[in-house]
């Protein structure tokens, strides 16, 4: 029991980290914090993959003639390399959106923004006072 | 030969460990930003230097040595810069150092 628990306990930690990250994403209303949470979440997922790739007593998967040993699994590493870059792309895009949102709304709190949107929506539809859109002419 | 090198490395590591731990203690203990910079400086200089020296003893003369030296040089180069800029900014933001002041302050 104990040995099996030790064998998998690293997973547990990774799962806990994932859940904290996920909580930040879905539980927090601050837009920047959500992105931070996403980063945490993704990084934890990366850890999960890398944990899969580890072999006891293995070395990094870079061939070396002088060392005859087991190499850890390179495939998860490759996948995670990809995933890290994808993550950073997501973060960058998210941040640029947050910037624009802050400029337009003056806030990056979800509650505040949805309140403003609601007012906007109300102006637009219920009262029939139509907001002219910024089309170019 | 290997034994001697190992002993050298051990000594270096010991000193290095001591200096980084003391530096870290200083980081906690010392009263304000400015004095903490000194402790941080200990980690950056003493610690790094001895550790890298110790490792150089292990590698002999090889590519790895070059890289170790590079790391050392880089840290030596950047550490005072960050320390200085931190201190400078702290001064700019009107954080005054504690303790007695000799001479005038710019």
């Amino acid at each position, binding site marked *: 029991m104990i040995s099996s628990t030790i*064998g998998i306990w690293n997973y547990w930690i990774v*799962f806990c980290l994932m859940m904290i990250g996920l909580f930040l994403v879905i539980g927090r209303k601050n837009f920047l914090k959500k992105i*931070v949470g996403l980063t945490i979440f993704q990084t934890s997922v*990366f850890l999960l993959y890398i944990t899969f790739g580890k072999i006891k007593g293995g070395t990094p*998967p870079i061939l070396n003639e002088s060392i005859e040993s087991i190499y850890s699994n390179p495939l998860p590493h490759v996948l995670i390399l*990809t995933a890290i870059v994808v993550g950073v792309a997501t973060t960058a*895009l998210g941040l640029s959106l947050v910037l624009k949102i802050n400029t337009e709304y003056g806030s990056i709190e979800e*509650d505040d923004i949805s309140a403003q949107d609601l007012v906007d929506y109300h102006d637009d539809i219920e009262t029939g006072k139509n907001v002219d859109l910024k089309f170019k002419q | 030969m290997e034994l001697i090198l190992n002993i050298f490395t051990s000594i270096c590591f010991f000193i290095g460990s001591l200096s980084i731990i003391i530096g870290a203690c200083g980081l906690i203990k010392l009263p304000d930003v400015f004095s903490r910079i000194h402790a941080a400086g200990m980690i950056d200089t003493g610690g790094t230097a001895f550790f890298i020296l110790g490792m150089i003893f292990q590698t002999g003369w090889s590519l790895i040595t070059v890289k170790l030296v590079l790391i050392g040089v880089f840290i030596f180069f950047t550490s005072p810069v960050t320390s200085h800029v931190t201190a400078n900014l702290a001064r700019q933001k009107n954080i005054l150092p504690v303790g007695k002041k000799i001479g005038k302050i710019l």
Partner: protein
Amino acid sequence: MISELLINAFLVTIMLSIAIALIKTRTVIFTVILTSAYSLVAALMFITLDAVDVAFTEASVGAGISTILFLAAMAYLPKKEEESISSEFIPALSCIILGGILIWCSYDLPEIGQFTAPIHQHIAPEYIKGSKEDIGIPNIVTSVLASYRGYDTFGETIVVFTAGVAVLALLQKKDPAKKNKSQPKQKIRKNA
């Protein structure tokens, strides 16, 4: 073995504490620094798990560039996070449920580092062999990255490209002529 476990435990503890601190803190700059630290520690973890390439990338991309981007963005953002009114119970619950499922399923996952696990037996040996024989470069990760799964990497390059173009298009500066016309519109506040 024990020492590996020790290092591991140490890093994991730090990561957990950073994560918890992230939940607690409401200061944006602190959040950013903690995120960066989290990535850095994760990079260390990758090193201890033999993934040097990943550690390299995580340190440079995850910790370096994204921190700088966060900082760059932070300059224009509010420096404090507001306390939310709404309850955090349901998100927390759903996270705990998901975590529970994962922990439940972890009993059927292969033990960490077990050489006989299918993951190490199925395709990976062919990469290790092939990298030496078919491709002839020592870094297996590079050979898998650029050749065996080169298409993934292509896709990834495109993802980066997409992000670049997207951000450029989004944050495009306005024409100066238009900027002159711009007038700050009245803010609609919650209570208004």
